[in-house]
């Protein structure tokens, strides 16, 4: 009887050890990220092991897809998160602000800050360095960020070209675009573009008549999966008629204020150069 009891105890101990060795297991010190950009940043800082859950929108790097989900982007599933017992939940915002209070009442630290531009990104990097106890990695990422931005600015200065006037299409019907101070606006500026929407902030829905009047040189098409050719109202826009529509190679790299953003800008810049030097006539056509 005593032997059997000892055997059961050993088996239970082995099972516990096996469960604990799973890196995605909810462990004290675990982090839940409900923002794709922050998930990318955490992984980039070498802290992927601390992630215990992600949002359904978090899909990069590929390895995070094996993590359990804890809600949609900015929409936490409270019960699931509470069951995971993380110490930290990070997101850019919550659709329902009361969710943050509920998590805080359960003793979970909640960090909610917007990330709409490079300054916000720098703040997040510094904060993550402190929260995840990886100051050296955070410092290195801050330096890389500053160097890349300075590099793009220097290239623009040396090229001495007039910026191309661009319309960023986030959605086609209604025409949702990126306004002044938005992330695509900041990204485009480093790639040599000038946003035609200057008076409106955020992501406004704008009129076609305004676009026709502004007559952009290029349209950067973020409306993934939407066909810009099938809408007859668009045919009056010269950039559409002349095929100057650029579909970013990976729009998630450009629309997420994360560590991949600088590679996205470099790709956008290179595609713009190809389009306007006429080297590749296939650019500007629907993929």
């Amino acid at each position, binding site marked *: 009887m005593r032997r059997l009891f000892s055997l059961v105890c050993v088996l239970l101990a082995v099972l516990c050890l096996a469960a604990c060795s799973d890196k995605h297991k909810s462990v004290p010190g675990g982090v839940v990220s409900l923002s794709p950009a922050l998930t990318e940043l955490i992984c980039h800082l070498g802290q992927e092991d601390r992630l215990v859950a992600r949002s359904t929108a978090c899909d990069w790097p590929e390895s995070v897809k094996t993590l359990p989900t804890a809600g949609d982007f900015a929409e936490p599933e409270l019960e699931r998160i509470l069951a995971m017992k993380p110490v930290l939940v990070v997101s850019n915002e919550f659709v329902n602000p009361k969710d943050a209070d509920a998590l805080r009442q359960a003793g979970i630290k909640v960090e909610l800050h917007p990330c709409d531009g490079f300054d916000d990104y720098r703040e997040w990097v510094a904060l993550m360095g402190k929260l995840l106890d990886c100051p050296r990695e955070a410092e290195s990422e801050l330096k890389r960020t500053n160097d890349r931005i300075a590099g793009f600015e220097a290239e623009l200065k040396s090229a001495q070209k007039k910026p191309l006037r661009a319309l960023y299409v986030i*959605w086609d*019907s*209604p025409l949702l675009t990126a306004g002044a101070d938005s992330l695509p606006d900041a990204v485009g500026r480093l790639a040599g573009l000038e946003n035609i929407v200057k008076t409106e902030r955020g992501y406004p829905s704008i009129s076609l008549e305004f676009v026709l009047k502004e007559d952009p040189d290029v349209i950067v098409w973020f409306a993934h999966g*939407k066909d810009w050719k099938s809408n*007859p*109202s668009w045919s009056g826009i010269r950039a559409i008629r002349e095929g100057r529509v650029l579909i970013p190679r990976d729009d998630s790299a450009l629309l997420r204020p994360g560590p991949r953003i600088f590679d996205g800008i470099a790709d956008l810049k290179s595609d713009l150069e190809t389009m306007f030097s006429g080297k590749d006539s296939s650019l500007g056509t629907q993929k």
Partner: protein
Amino acid sequence: MKTARIILIYLAVALAAAVCGVLFGATRVPLSEFVQDGALNPIVELRIVRTAAAAVVGASLAVSGLVFQAVLRNSLAEPYLLGVSGGAGLGAAGAILLGFSAWGFMSVPLFALLGAVTANLLVFAAVRRRTAEELLLGGVMIGTLASSLLMVLITFSHSRDMAGVVWWMLGSVQNVDPARQLAPAAVLLAAATVFLLFRAGDVDLLTFGPEYAWNHGVNARVMTVVLLALASLLAAVTVSMAGIIGFCGLVVPHIVRRLHGGSHRKILIPAALAGAVFLMLADILGRVVSPVRELPVGMVTAAVGCPVFLWLLNRSRAGS
């Protein structure tokens, strides 16, 4: 005043509104730039299409509302009563949120039309006796069910998709395809107007109740179903084209009826033209007030229609 003179006045106002619709907008286009290099300026072309769309949508909603109010003998009746808005909303949201909008520009309008017609057919199928009152109640039930399902879809949607659904529900005449949407809607409106002019006497009799109409030789039940189906079809087509635009179908028939009496032969065309004018002016206002962002026309019709209607209501009461 004679009917012909009333129609002529309304026609002149409608033409003036149409000219304003082409002249004014988010940007200033001098008359000298209306034609550039032998072709029409794209901005002017865009204004012509949207002004024509506003006219057809406004007229259709007014005619539809006029029929609903007459047949149901209810001053609160409006074109979306028989589940049209809920069904169309569900169809459009389904197309946007389930990814069918990637099939092409016409997918959302077609799904909206399908939703509206399906909701309508469900009302007619579910209500056994098909009297005006029962159809009205059936419409409210099916509309509520469709709206609830729409809310479920919105709950599971992403923010970008939701913006599309919300904008569509507020109504806009900016993105109307002249060949595939506007032309068929104009033909339907013309056909419905001709039919209603011929049966205007029956509509007048139905306003006194089905028994009264029956006693005067009208098959009240059949005529009620035909008229409500026609009015719902008009509303369904406009909804698929421009989203849900409120107030036009409710307010315009009221105003025209108050001004010119209850004979439908006399007020049908004025109501259609008044609806066209109302929506053309609302569209111009939406473009001019906020040039870059542009106000959705449904928002303007509600903001303008509500106080105008209340003012008219109080004025006529004070007069009486």
